[in-house]
């Protein structure tokens, strides 16, 4: 794995010449060594107490005292955690913390965090976990059923931007290609074959055709019959002959 571009100064000092000595490193080493010595001394000092706890007569009393001490210790640890939590909350709520975060975000930290997120595929892992847990589905259903979602959808559909987007999609070369693929698909061919061979469609077309022909012939006959009367009336008018009553 390549070295992090924003590695700490400690890493930088470790890569320095081993002959050069930094005072800060020496102080840190001194503290670590002192801690290790103190731990050993403590264990050596408690050795008589452990031996006494195993003794047959004083052992139970020593163990009872140790248990009481442990209970007191747990209580103190819990109290300490609560105080630590309260202190952390006060620290986070302080304006200094906000300013610190603001400065950190203004600096290269934001890019570094983004790179780390991308490098470790944090978004993919989060999305996978959310989808697997069903939280995404529930959130989408809740959002779609909300009245605000309906209002947002209506406003989005009514916006000129949506109109331009739809027009651009319709004018793109994707539409004819998609249409051709749909028309050439076996499913569409099956649908077309079913529709073309359906008895209902044939019956409807036959009825439409026959009714159209009948209407045409009926209209033609009505017109010619009307013309019969007009022509006869005209000629008889010229000849001053009355129309027959049987005509």
């Amino acid at each position, binding site marked *: 794995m390549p070295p992090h571009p924003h590695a700490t100064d400690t890493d930088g000092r470790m890569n320095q010449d081993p002959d050069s000595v930094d005072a800060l490193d020496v102080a840190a080493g001194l503290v670590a060594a002192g801690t290790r010595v103190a731990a050993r001394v403590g264990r050596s000092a408690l050795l008589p107490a452990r031996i006494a706890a195993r003794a047959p007569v004083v052992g139970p009393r020593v163990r009872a005292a140790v248990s009481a001490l442990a209970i007191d210790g747990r209580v103190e640890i819990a109290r300490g955690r609560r105080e630590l939590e309260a202190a952390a909350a006060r620290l986070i709520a302080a304006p200094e913390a906000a300013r610190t975060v603001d400065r950190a975000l203004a600096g290269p930290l934001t890019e570094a965090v983004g790179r780390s997120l991308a490098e470790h595929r944090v978004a993919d892992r989060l999305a996978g976990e959310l989808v697997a847990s069903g939280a995404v589905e529930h959130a989408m259903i809740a959002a779609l059923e909300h009245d605000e979602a309906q209002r947002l959808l209506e406003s989005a559909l009514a916006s000129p931007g949506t109109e331009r987007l739809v027009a651009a999609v319709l004018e793109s070369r994707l539409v004819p290609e998609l249409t051709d693929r749909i028309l050439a698909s076996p499913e569409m061919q099956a649908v077309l074959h079913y529709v073309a061979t359906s008895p209902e469609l044939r019956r409807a077309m036959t009825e439409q055709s026959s009714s159209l022909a009948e209407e045409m012939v009926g209209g033609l006959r009505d017109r010619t*019959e009307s013309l019969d009367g007009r022509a*006869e009336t005209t000629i008889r008018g010229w*000849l001053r002959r009355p129309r027959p009553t049987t005509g």
Partner: protein
Amino acid sequence: MAAAATPDDRLTAPVAYAGIATRGVALAIDAALSQGVFVIGAALLGLIGSLVGTIRPEWLAATLLSGGWAITMTSYFVGFWAVTGQTPGMRLMHVRVVARNGRPPSFGRGLVRLAGLVLAIIPLFAGFLPVLVDDRRRGLADMLAGTVVLYADRALPVAEPAPEQALLAIDDMSGQPG
């Protein structure tokens, strides 16, 4: 032909006779159909004849062609008139031709009517002009053949029995037992 009755008086019911426009359209449709039948038939026969050889001399071919045309026209018009009283064009226009007895004309009467039709067409269709002035809208062909053309969807002409036939019918009824 019944001589006892006055034939023209037997069609006394108020029947709507077909006028010149309806009959003209029907005749045009029939002319197109009959000519189409003739052309298709002549083409088929010509195609078959071309496999055998050409007809010589030319006057023989023209005679055969004219004879075929005349037979086709006669069969078409007279056949339809005599069988149903309607050619396809007349059926389409809902008109029909009937004789004086209210029935389709006989084959002989149909031949006379066809001849009258040809005579009416020759002088630039002037033979159809009587339809405009005749009380029963008869043309030259109808006058020659003793027929009339009716609207098919109107009331049929009522043929009133002649007095002699009515008397015979009464005698028959009185002679029957019980």
